[in-house]
Structure formats: C-alpha cells, structure tokens
C-alpha cells in the first residue's frame, strides 16, 4: 500500500488545488447580475434561436463509421508488428475480422447511410 | 430385482387413452372412443399377465422398472421406479382385469349418455392412477397414484355435475379423502425422518436391521423416543390415510354418497379397486405394522367395529346402491380387521374375492337400474327374476358368495378372516360373526325385495318396456359371477387339501405366512358355525321378505319403529358430524370472520405487515426517479461504500 500512498497524495493535492481555485474565484470575483447580463452572448445581437441546435443525424453516422474503421486500424498496427510470431492462426483470425467488417460496410452502403441526401 | 421396463406401459397406456379422449374425444366417433378406451386397458392387462408370468418363471424374483431418476437432493434419493412383486401381481390382475370387464360393461350402460367420451376419459385416468399406486416402488410414487385415484374418483362421482347433489357428493369424497391424505403425508415424513428412505425395498431392509425396538434413539430428529413409539406413530398416521381411502370409521361417510356416480364407477372404484388401496397400503407396509403391535390393535378394533356398524345401517336402506355401499364399507372393515390381527394374506384374499362378487353385484344393480329407467328404490322393484334372468342368476350367486355360503368364494375368504380374528381375541370374533349375520340378512332382504313377488313400480306399464341388458352388460356379469364362484380355489383351507393355499404360497415372500393354530376339528366346527350364521341370516331374510314384500313382522320391526329410524338415518352420524365438527368448524369460521380476521389478521398482521412491506416498498421506490443522473449517483455511492468496506 505504501507505494500507492504517494499517488494518493498526488490525487489529493490535485483535487485541493482545483477546489481552492474554484472557491477563490467564486468568493473573490465581483458579481452584479442583471437579466441582460444573464442572457447568452451572441456578437451583440439579441439571440435568435435555441442555444442547443440539432445536428443532422448524418454526422453521427459518419462519426460512428469513422470510429469503427479507426479502431480497425488500431487493431491492425500491433497485429502487423507480431504478425510472424502469430503465424497462420493470427492471419486467418484477422482475415475473418476484416471480412466481417467488410460485410458490415456493404450493409451500411446498401442501407443508404453513405448517401448524404 | 429383474429389469422389466415394459412395466411403464401399464399405467402409461390408459394415461395415453385418457389424454387422447380428453383432447379429441368430443369429436370422435363413439365407436373409436370405445376402441381407445378398451384397447388401452386390455393392453395393460396383457402386460400385467406377461409380467406375472415372467416373475413366476424367475422363481418370484420381483421385477423393476426405473423410469427416471426423480429427485436427488442431498442424501435423499427418490427414483420414479415401478416394482412388480407377488402382491402387486395379485392386485394388478384384479385392477386391469376387472377394470377391463367394467369398461366393457360401461359401453352398454353409458351408451345413451352425451358425455360418453368424458366418462371413458376419466375411467382410463383412474386405471392409470390406480396402476401407479399399486406399482409404485416408494411412498412418493405411491402417493402420486393415491392422489390420482382420488382425483379420478372425484371427477366420476360428480360426473353428472349439473345435479348439485351429485357434485356435492364428489366434493364430500374429495374433502374427506384430503383429511386422510394428511395422515398419509405425516406417516411418510415420519418414516423418512426415521429411516432416511421412502423406498419399500430399502425400508424393509432398514426395518429388518433395527435391533430391539424398545431401545431409545440417540441420534436424529427422533432422539429420545424408542423406535417402536415412532413406528407406531407412523403407522397410526398411515392408518388415518387408510380410513379415508378405504372408508373406515370415522371417515367412511363419503362412500355411500359416492353412489351418486354412474353405477360402473361404483363397481370399479367404490367396490373393487380404489377403496381397497388402503388395505393394499397396509399390506405393503406390513413389515412396519408388525413392529408396531399397538397400532395393529387400533386397526383391528376400528376394522371390526366398521364391519358391524356399516352392516347395521345396510339393513335399513331402501336404495339398492346404498345397501351395496354400506355392504362395501362393512366388507372393507373385515379386510382391515384381518390386517389388524396380522393376517395379511387373509385380508388380501378377501380383497380379491370381494372384488369379484361386489363388482358383480354393483354391475347387476346397474343392470336393474338400467332396466327400470333409473329407478333405485327397492320398494318399487320386485319380481324381476322373470324379466332379467341372467342378471338375476349372477346376482343370486354373488349374494350367496357375499353372505358366505359354502363353497362360494366369499365363504373361504370371510371364514379365514373370522378364524384369525377369533384366535386373536374372542370379542373380535364375535364382532365378526355379528357382522356376518347382518350381512346375510340385509343381502337376502335386498335380493328378495328386488327379484321376488310382483313388480311394484308406480308406472304400471314399466313391465312392458323394461330395458333388457345387452350382451356387453351380460358377459361381464357372467364372467364376474363365475369368478365369484370359483374364486375360493385361490386359497383353499389347509384342512381340506393338507397343504398351504395357493395365495398363501404366492404372497408368502411379501406378506409372510401366518397359519391358524386351531385343530382340524375346531376348524371344521368353526366353518360349520360360519355357514350356520349365514344360513340363519338368509332364513330370517326369507321369512320376513320371502314374498318380495315385507311381512307384518318385518314392517313393524325393520321397516319402521325406533330401531329403523336410527338405522335408516345411519346412526345420525352425518347429523353428528354436522352438529359437532362441521358446526364447530363453522363456528370457528365465523369467529374468524368476525373477530380474528378483521381485528387480528387484517388489523394487526395484514395491515401491519403489508403496511410494512408496501411502506418499505414505497420508500425503496424513492431512488427510482427516472433520472439517469440520480441512478448514476446511487451507483457511485454504492461502489464507494462497498469498496471502502471491502478494503478497510
């Protein structure tokens, strides 16, 4: 346990610094709230729509697909490093993995997720 | 033990029959329903015969079929196992054989009933359950059958359920039997607690291994009691079950009411087979009862008293089936009496012969009722001798057999029971003799009033349009009557043949042998006395009822007057129960309804506990806000507490 004690102390110090700064800011900072000041700031103009805007679901789909293939790459790199060590077992396992992903891509494509319109 | 897996088909075939009829019977042709019902029971009978043959060929080694391993918990093991030894063989032949005959008879008796298929469905169900009961190799398996026959009996008594009275009779039978079942279960648990097994073979070995029965137990849940005391308690508990199923004092009241069912049912279930289940159980557990002599005394006394008590009631009944019902109760009393004096083979012998002649009598009464378009009152019968001669002949033979006239089957079996009873104690012997006299008397009264004199039916034209029984009804009658005549040959007395009777030898390995200790002269004298008593009863019956109508003497002594009043009203036992137990229960019920329920149960227990439960439920619901944030907060809090607690 002793070895971890220092880490614990580090955590504690970090938390305390954050706490102290936050407290200081809220205590010392001058405050004079009025309705106009409370409003969201939009380049000096009165705000027009809701603050949180809906983003088209297409973005999410693209983001998802990006992550999927990103992860695939992350898998492929370490695999390539020890490829010879793993032998055929490793090779076929990865082929299966990529094939399933490929079929997934076909599915997504046919489903129309890649059409922006 | 020899493996003989076909045993499973004995209960399975009728069960399949019941299943098929229950599901598709309504849409079936009547003839195909008949084929299903009859062929399955006949199949069971055939397998029983083959099994018996196999067993005998192997020098009586019991057969066994383990269907599946049922419950294995800790050190308790119960297999769903069927066994087949001599005792089983004897009863199974009766159950499936007589059962088949009664199925055949029913095709004629029930032919006009719209629920023909339903009747045979229940009847098949009964045969299946009864086979299970007899074949069961351990107490739990036997109990499945025990409950099954109770269910089938309930369904069949209330077969014409649109008649409230009949439905009530079914319910009465069921509830009375439940009281007995409670005893059965208690007995089972005691046995399990004492010996750690419920299998008959292992129990027998365990009982044999018990040393002196007076020794105190030092371990187990019965520590501090002697083996004898515990076994006696178990046997009494089982006997309570027997009084329910085999209609003994005090639980016999359901059997006479059970006559509400169709007559073939009365013959099969309430005379030949189901009601003998209690006797079978005691024979099966004979090794247990033997080391509990005190329990046996109770059994003998209850049996003897039932024999006489029911016979007295039988004297004053006017419903032909009621007379036979009380006669059955009385004869069951003889069987129980025989068990009580340790004469298991004699009990079983009487069970078998009784199955023959009583089934024949019931079927005969069914033929009579059928002929008279449903008339059951013997005061409106008479002179039927000429109209239904075959029924008359078979009825006469069976009556004589029941009365105990030499050389019919009833004579041999009843005489054996009486001889053993009087050897055990003179008073038991006297009880038995009184019962025998009454039996002969009420049976001859029934016989003469039914068949002699002129037909006294209120409908003067009845004579011309009697329903003559068909072949399907007459053939079973003839076969059963023949069996009632020759059935005695199963176990001829030692003094006749100078060798042990067949049944004695056959059942010896299971039930042990017990021989009369009286001299040959004494035995002949005893037989003469028995026959004399029976003849006296019949003669009295003839004198009083010989013309088919009661004579003046009979009218004033038996058919009316205070004695008649008491007997006709069955010693007021129903009223006694009504005014004591039932009223007391009702009182308790209303007490509960007015005081205990609203104040103690509802007020304190329910309101408090449900308040506690639902209150805490409502409290526990608080964190269930629907907010994911608060869920996560609870989650983190719990992890923090648990981790903190686990680490420090």
């Amino acid at each position, binding site marked *: 346990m002793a070895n971890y004690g220092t880490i614990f102390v580090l955590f504690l110090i970090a938390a305390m610094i954050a706490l102290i700064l936050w407290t200081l800011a809220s205590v010392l900072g001058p405050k004079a709230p009025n309705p106009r000041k409370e409003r969201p700031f939009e380049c000096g103009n009165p705000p027009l729509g809701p603050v949180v805007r809906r983003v088209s679901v297409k973005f999410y789909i693209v983001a998802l697909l990006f992550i999927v293939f990103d992860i695939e790459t992350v898998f492929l790199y370490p695999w390539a490093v020890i490829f010879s060590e793993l032998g055929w077992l490793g090779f076929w396992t990865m082929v299966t993995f990529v094939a399933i992903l490929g079929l997934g891509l076909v599915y997504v494509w046919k489903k129309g997720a890649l059409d922006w319109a | 033990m020899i493996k003989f897996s076909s045993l499973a088909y004995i209960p399975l075939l009728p069960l399949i029959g019941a299943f098929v009829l229950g599901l598709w019977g309504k849409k079936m042709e009547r003839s195909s329903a008949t084929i299903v019902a009859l062929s399955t029971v006949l199949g069971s009978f055939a397998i029983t015969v083959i099994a018996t043959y196999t067993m005998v060929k192997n020098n009586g080694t019991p057969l066994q079929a383990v269907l599946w*391993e049922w419950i294995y918990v800790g050190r308790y093991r119960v297999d769903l196992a069927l066994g087949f030894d001599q005792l089983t063989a004897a009863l199974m032949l009766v159950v499936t054989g007589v059962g088949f005959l009664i199925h055949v008879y029913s095709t004629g008796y029930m032919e006009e009933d719209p629920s023909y298929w339903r009747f045979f469905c229940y009847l098949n169900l009964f045969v299946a359950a009864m086979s299970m009961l007899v074949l069961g190799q351990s107490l739990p398996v036997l109990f499945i059958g025990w409950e099954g026959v109770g269910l089938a009996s309930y369904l069949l008594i209330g077969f014409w359920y649109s008649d409230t009275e009949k439905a009530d009779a079914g319910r009465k039978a069921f509830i009375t039997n439940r009281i007995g079942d409670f005893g059965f279960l208690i007995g089972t648990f005691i046995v399990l607690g004492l010996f750690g097994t419920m299998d008959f073979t292992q129990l027998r070995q365990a009982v044999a291994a018990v040393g002196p029965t007076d020794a105190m137990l030092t371990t187990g849940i019965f520590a501090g009691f002697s083996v004898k005391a515990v076994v006696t308690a178990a046997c009494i508990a089982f006997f309570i079950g027997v009084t329910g199923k085999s209609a003994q004092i005090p639980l016999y009241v359901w059997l006479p009411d059970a006559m509400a069912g169709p007559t073939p049912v009365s013959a099969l279930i309430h005379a030949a087979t189901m009601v003998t289940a209690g006797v079978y159980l005691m024979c099966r557990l004979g090794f247990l009862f033997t080391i509990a002599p005190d329990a046996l005394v109770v059994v003998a006394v209850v049996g003897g008293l039932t024999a006489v008590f029911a016979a007295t009631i039988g004297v004053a009944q006017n419903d032909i089936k009621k007379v036979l019902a009380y006669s059955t109760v009385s004869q069951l009393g003889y069987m129980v009496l025989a068990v009580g004096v340790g004469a298991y083979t004699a009990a079983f012998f009487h069970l078998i012969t009784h199955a023959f002649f009583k089934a024949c009598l019931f079927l005969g009464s069914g033929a009579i009722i059928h002929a008279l378009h449903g008339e059951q009152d013997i005061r409106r019968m008479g002179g039927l001798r000429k109209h239904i001669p075959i029924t008359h002949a078979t009825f006469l033979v069976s009556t004589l057999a029941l009365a105990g006239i030499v050389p019919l089957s009833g004579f041999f079996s009843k005489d054996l029971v009486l001889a053993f009873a009087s050897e055990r104690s003179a008073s038991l012997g006297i009880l038995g003799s009184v019962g025998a006299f009454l039996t002969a008397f009420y049976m001859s009264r029934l016989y003469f009033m039914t068949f002699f004199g002129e037909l006294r039916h209120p409908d003067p034209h009845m004579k011309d349009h009697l329903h003559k029984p068909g072949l399907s009804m007459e053939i079973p009658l003839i076969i059963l009557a023949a069996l009632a005549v020759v059935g005695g040959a199963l176990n001829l007395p030692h003094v006749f043949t100078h060798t042990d009777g067949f049944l004695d030898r056959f059942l010896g390995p299971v039930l042990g042998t017990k021989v009369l200790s009286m001299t040959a002269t004494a035995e002949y004298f005893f037989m003469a006395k028995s026959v004399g008593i029976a003849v006296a009863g019949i003669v009295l019956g003839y004198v009083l009822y010989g013309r088919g109508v009661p004579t003046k003497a009979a009218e004033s002594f038996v058919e009316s007057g205070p004695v008649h009043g008491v007997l006709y009203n069955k010693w007021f036992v129903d009223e006694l129960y009504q005014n004591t137990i039932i009223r007391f229960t009702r009182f308790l019920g209303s007490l509960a309804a007015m005081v205990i329920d609203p104040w103690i149960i509802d007020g304190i227990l329910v309101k408090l506990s449900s308040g506690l439960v639902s209150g805490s439920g409502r409290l526990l619901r608080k964190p269930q806000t629907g907010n994911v944030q608060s869920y996560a907060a609870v*989650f983190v809090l719990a992890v923090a507490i648990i*981790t903190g607690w686990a680490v420090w």
Partner: protein
Amino acid sequence: MQYLNALTAILPVVVLLGTAVILLMLEVFSLGKDRIWAANFSLVGLAVAFYFAMKGLGAEPQALFAGPGKSAPIIADAFGNLAAAVMLAGAFVAVLLSPEYIKNARCSSGEYYALILFSVVGMIVMAMAGDLITFFLGLEVMSIGVYVLTGIRRNDLRASEAALKYLLMGAFATGFLLMGIAFIYGATGTVALPELARQMVAPVGGAPILVTGLVLLLVGVAFKVAAVPFHLWAPDVYEGAPTPITGFMAVGVKAAAFVALVRIVAVGFANSEESAVVIPFISVIAYLTIIVGNLLAIVQRNVKRMLAYSSVSHAGYALIGVVALARGEESAGAAVLFYLTAYTFMTLGAFGVLVFLERKEGGAESERFGAFAGMGYRHPALGVAMSVFMVALAGMPPTGGFFGKLYIFSSAINAGEMGLVFAGILGSIISVYYYLRVIVSFYMVDVPDAGPLPTATRSRHLTAGLIIATAGVLTLGIFPNQWIELGKLAFKSLQLG
C-alpha cells in the same frame, strides 16, 4: 489446420455469426419483403447452433486461439457448451415470440433478428471466456446488441428513453468493470483465469488493490444481472423495451453474466484469501437483491414492471448459489445452471403471454393487472400456461422453479449460509403474493365488459414459443435429475480444464 480446428470447436458461435451476417445481407439486398422468413431463418440458425452445443457436451475441454506461449482466450468445454445451449434455447423462444409483435410495432425486422443472434454470440463468448479481456469483449458484444434492440421501436418515446438510459448506465458500469480488470491485472500481472488461480495460491503483493479490482469486477457483473443496488435501470428499461426483447434480456443477459461469474469464481478465484474477503460483499448484494426486489415487485401496478422486479429478485436467488460456490460448495455450480435454465423458460413464458395479450387486447401496451381480468376464461390454454409460469416463478412444485430453488438452497445449506437461505425463503413467500395476483386477475376478477370475444388471430410462432416454454418448465419439474446431473458433469469439466 489450427484455425479450422479451433472454429470446429466453437461451431455454435460460427453458425450464429454466419446466420446473422447472411440475415443482414438478405435484408439489404431485399430478397423477400415478407418478414417472417427472417424469423424462420434465425430459428434454423439457432437450432443448428443448439445441436452443435449439445454435441459439444461430450467433447474434451479445448483451449483455443492461444498465441504462442500465451494463455487461451476461449475455452470450449462442457460447461461453456451447456451454458450456450441454455442461452440458445432462450433466444429460440424469444425469436418465436417476436414476429407478431414486431409486425404490430412496425419496427424493422431483419436487423432485429440479426441483433439477437449477435447478442447470443456475445453471451457464448462470455460463457467460454478464458481470460477477463475476452469476457469483457463478449459482454460488450452482447450489451451493444441489446442496447439497440431496446430502442428498436424508434417512434416510441418510452423505448427511446429506455435505450438511452440503458446505454448510458451500461457504459458507466462497463467503466467500473474495466477498472476492476485493470486493478486485477495490476495486482497479479495477468488476466488469464488459470494463471490467476496460480497467482492466487502464491502470496500476492498489494492485496487491497486486488480486492478493489475484484469488487469493481463484481459491480460490473452485478449491474448486468440487475442486482440491488445496481438495479435502478432495470424497471425503466424492461418496461420500455419490446416485450420479447425484455424477456430475452431478462434471461439471456442474466444467464450469460452468471455463467461467466461461475467460471471466474470457480476457475480464477477459488480458495484465495482475497476472494474470501469479497464473499460477504456478494452476500450483502444477494440479501439486498432478494429483499428489495420482492418488496418493490409487490407495489407495482404494471405487470411488465412487476416482472422486471421479479427478475431482479431471481438474480438474488442465483447469487445465493454464487456465494455457496465461492465458499467452496461444488454442487452450487450445477445448481446455478439449473436455476438459470428453469428461470429462462418460466420468465420467457411469462413475457410471451404478455406479448399475446398486448397484441390482442389493446393493440398497444395493456399491461396493468386490471387489463387481465377474466383472461383465463377467454383464453383457457393461455390461462393455464400463465398459471404454470407464475407457479414456477413462485417456486412451487411440480415445476422447474421449485427444483431450482431447492438445489440452490440445499447447496447454500451445505455451505453453511443459513442466513441467505432464510432470506431466500422469506423472499419466495413474499413473491407468492404478487405472482398469485396475476392468476387471480386471470381467473377471479369479473370481466368488466362481457362484450364479444376478440377475434383470435393465432400466431403459430407465438403458440410454439409458449408451448416450448411450458414444456421446459414442466419437464424440469418432472425430470429434474437429468438436467442437474448434466450440470454436475459440465461443472466438473470446468475444474479439469
């Protein structure tokens, strides 16, 4: 070839994966707009997989996909195969319950069945996991499939809410689980179960770290089986999910998590001081789960929600078995398997009846107790089936539910856990109240409107599903011994392997 050999040892997984991928392809190439083929096709796949799982029962335990000098991530043994068979049977019934429901709910269907199959793949991987990372992978594959299935009725607000909640809470819990695995790795230097067992026997440095890791791992599993106090998501999610999926989730996810837990406890953490420290913690969770689950089930007005809490309480009974197992009582392993099997059939059956009634008697969700008034007379067969399931859930003979509890309790007695047994029996007594209430409303509440009977649109699939569930419950109640012996054999393979 090593790879092909490895694949033949896990044929159930291969078959399922193939079926699911083909289903997806067929869906997008639109070879058939009649949706019933998708159900039938996945049924065939599940049946074939089931066959291979049962066949795998007899095979020797095999360690598969091991890199050179590394421990095997997948262990195909009798235990894994038996567990797979149970989960496959559950999925089979769940698929049978689905076609009518998704037709009425108008949700897309090809993906629906493919997702079920993918989830089952994850479950089987969990049951066969040889190390904690593979266990985690299986858990995620299963969970992601179930997250999507929960929200598959996209136009239903309740369903979307449920899916989002489940996803958020699930991700949250997975974080703890992973943290636990990381701690365990940190303390012992391995995640492979057999290696862990060896490390445990030798004195390990940093015991508090290991204990923390174990606790966090168990928290993750406790979340998946909806054990109190990590159950809060369950009622909302169960209520919002499509009813067949609720059933699938209640039995499949739970069974997979418990089976994996049994393997982890029996193989990885047997007889170590650290795991002994954790036992009281599992006990407390078991106590809480049984008591809170049952108490909350009583106050519910909605049958689906009641069943959700009841499934919480059943997780508690299974946890009793885990505690007994952790105490070294070997019969508990088979007892838990038996319990899960019985639970699978009775719970799916109950949800199946709900599917039937929802569809027919209101179109939408009609789940209040009152909506069931007199159903026993309108649909006699259905009434009988529901009574069987309720009686089984309450733990009465002659059903599998009775023997499941019997085995669990008797193994706990052998392990000396009398307190838990007492709590379990108390919980069962409480549970009788709300289970019988369903039967009461089926039979003994007057039908409010004795109008014309609704025209019965019979679905063969649904009927078949209910028949299988009823048969399963009763078979386990009448022939309990065969299954428990199979469970014992399977559990033995776990210790040999």
